[in-house]
């Protein structure tokens, strides 16, 4: 757990990302209302508040699917990284749209009556499915996630807690499915909305199963190829220098230890933990840019030889002692304290590897 965090940095990509979300959300809601007005002209007009309730509910569930799809997609292809980059803003926007949906329901379905509006909506008669309550529980979970999405909370709650809390998104997703299937879709004679939601759930589920299986297989393979500690010296032979492309890394798994990222830069090797100090991103999938290891998730940077972020930043990650024997790479599997300088291990490049 680290008690420091960087404040959110604004940049062009985040602005474009947020602008796209805002345009898509307003476009969808306005479009939905206009289409409804066209297809249901007076006197068969649907009440505007109800149209807005539906438009926001549907918009929210579409956003939720996108949010759930981006994670596994980014693990399948690095091309999805731009979608992942600012996913928190997508999450917070999703929560806002769902909240507007809920407030409109409480205001219009629960309001103007003899009961407290929130109670009127949540207090289903005995024997009747409380589908609104499922939505309410989901909204509470999304609210907790949105409220703690800032890095401040990540830094102060600690990684494990933060992650556990954010895994609750799956519980909330199931609650949303129940909310819709037992509620508005319950007596619906039309199968199309049910087909659409099944497609959504199938895509979310299959992408998770696919990436999950890949990761289990990778862990299994890593375990099989797991480098073993050498009894005498404690140093471990992890790979060949030729396994590592310039400015990139190889992620190695040493038995009973965390994953280590072995980076190659200027014909020398440095070993650091694979876990980013920010949100635990896989540093070994990153790249050396401007002499710094750059995390593929949000671009936090660390100097490979000491694991320190360049000034003015202060993040530190663990380094590992490393040496090259012949073309084999050896690592001392006991991590150095975060920020410890270690001497990069230099080696003779192949002629075609020469930098120009």
């Amino acid at each position: 757990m680290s008690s420091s965090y960087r404040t959110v940095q604004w940049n062009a990509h985040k602005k474009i990302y947020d602008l796209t979300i805002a345009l898509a959300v307003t476009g969808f809601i306005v479009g939905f209302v206009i289409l409804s007005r066209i297809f249901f002209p007076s006197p068969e007009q649907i009440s505007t508040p109800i149209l807005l309730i539906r438009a926001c509910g549907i918009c929210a569930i579409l956003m939720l699917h996108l949010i759930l799809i981006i994670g596994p997609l980014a693990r399948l292809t690095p091309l999805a990284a731009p979608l992942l980059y600012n996913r928190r803003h997508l999450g917070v926007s999703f929560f806002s749209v769902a909240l507007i949906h809920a407030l409109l329901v409480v205001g219009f379905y629960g309001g103007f009556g003899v009961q407290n509006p929130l109670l009127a909506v949540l207090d289903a008669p005995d024997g009747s499915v409380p589908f609104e309550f499922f939505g309410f529980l989901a909204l509470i979970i999304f609210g907790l996630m949105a409220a703690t999405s800032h890095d401040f909370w990540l830094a102060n709650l600690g990684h494990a807690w933060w992650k556990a809390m954010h895994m609750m998104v799956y519980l909330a997703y199931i609650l949303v499915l129940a909310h819709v299937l037992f509620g508005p879709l319950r007596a619906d004679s039309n199968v199309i909305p049910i087909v659409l939601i099944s497609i959504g759930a199938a895509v979310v589920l299959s992408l998770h199963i696919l990436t999950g299986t890949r990761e289990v297989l990778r862990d299994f393979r890593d375990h099989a190829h797991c480098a073993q500690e050498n009894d005498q010296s404690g140093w471990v032979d992890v790979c060949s220098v030729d396994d590592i492309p310039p400015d990139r890394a190889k992620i190695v798994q040493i038995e009973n230890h965390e994953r280590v990222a072995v980076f190659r830069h200027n014909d020398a090797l440095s070993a650091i933990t694979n876990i980013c100090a920010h949100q635990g991103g896989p540093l070994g999938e990153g790249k050396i840019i401007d002499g710094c290891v750059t995390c593929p998730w949000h671009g936090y940077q660390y100097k490979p030889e000491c694991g320190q972020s360049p000034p003015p930043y202060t993040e530190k990650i663990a380094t590992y002692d490393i040496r090259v024997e012949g073309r084999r790479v050896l690592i001392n599997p006991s991590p150095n304290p975060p920020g410890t300088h270690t001497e990069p291990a230099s080696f003779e490049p192949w002629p075609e590897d020469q930098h120009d």
Partner: protein
Amino acid sequence: MTDSQASGPNNTNRSDPLYVGYMPAPDEHRRAVKRTLILLAAWLSFCAFTLVLTMPSPGEGVWENSNERVWEGFLTNDPYPMLLTPEETLLVVSMGKHGAHDQIDEFANSHVSLRGYELRRQGRRMIEMVPDSITPLGEAPSPQPTLSMLDIEPIDFTGEIIDGKCYLGAMKPGNGFAHRACAVLCLRGGLPAMFAEDDASPDEPLPLLIVDGSTQVPEHVMQYIATRVQMKARRASVGTLPVLIVDSSTIERANDFFGNPKTIVIEQSED
């Protein structure tokens, strides 16, 4: 990822972009984002179109809530707040989700004028009364309405118990399970319950419901609101209004999304 990275010195010179949010995006990523956005826009439009097109029609209820009008007639609270005019019997309700019993009480069984907004659907008209708008018009012959029974034996009905005000046009749609919380709140507030029969023709007037002898729907019946139900009822009328007299023990859930009809035994109170 590690596989491709670990493929040895051969991939040294490949283009090897990494997307970093605060740096200019590599071309590969730009193209992928563009394609994703086009796909996303197409999917959003498709969803909006299909989901709008598959919404059921909310019916032809009308709520003239910007056209205040004046009515004259005989006002009564029995069995419902109603205004009897020479032509028809109009239900009277209050603003919001409230019945008009209390507001009318003081003027019940007298000739009055009152102001309000009209709601209408399927030949049924209702007045949403403006608060404190009743003016007594002095004595007049009193056409006290009575409940006249049409059936001796109850017959089967299938349909949905609805709150009259929403269904006539205050909320569109004012029926269906999505609207359940609102319907229950309206009925708890004393708005008249009606019965929308399956396959009723649009010009068949909607009958009012009297459940277990009361115009106020009992709490144990609320679980059936906004779902399809079967019940046994006797037809009756009051003024020009058709009425169904139903015993709550005969109400049961009809077929819906979750399958078979379900009978819930309700203990009956003897009176």
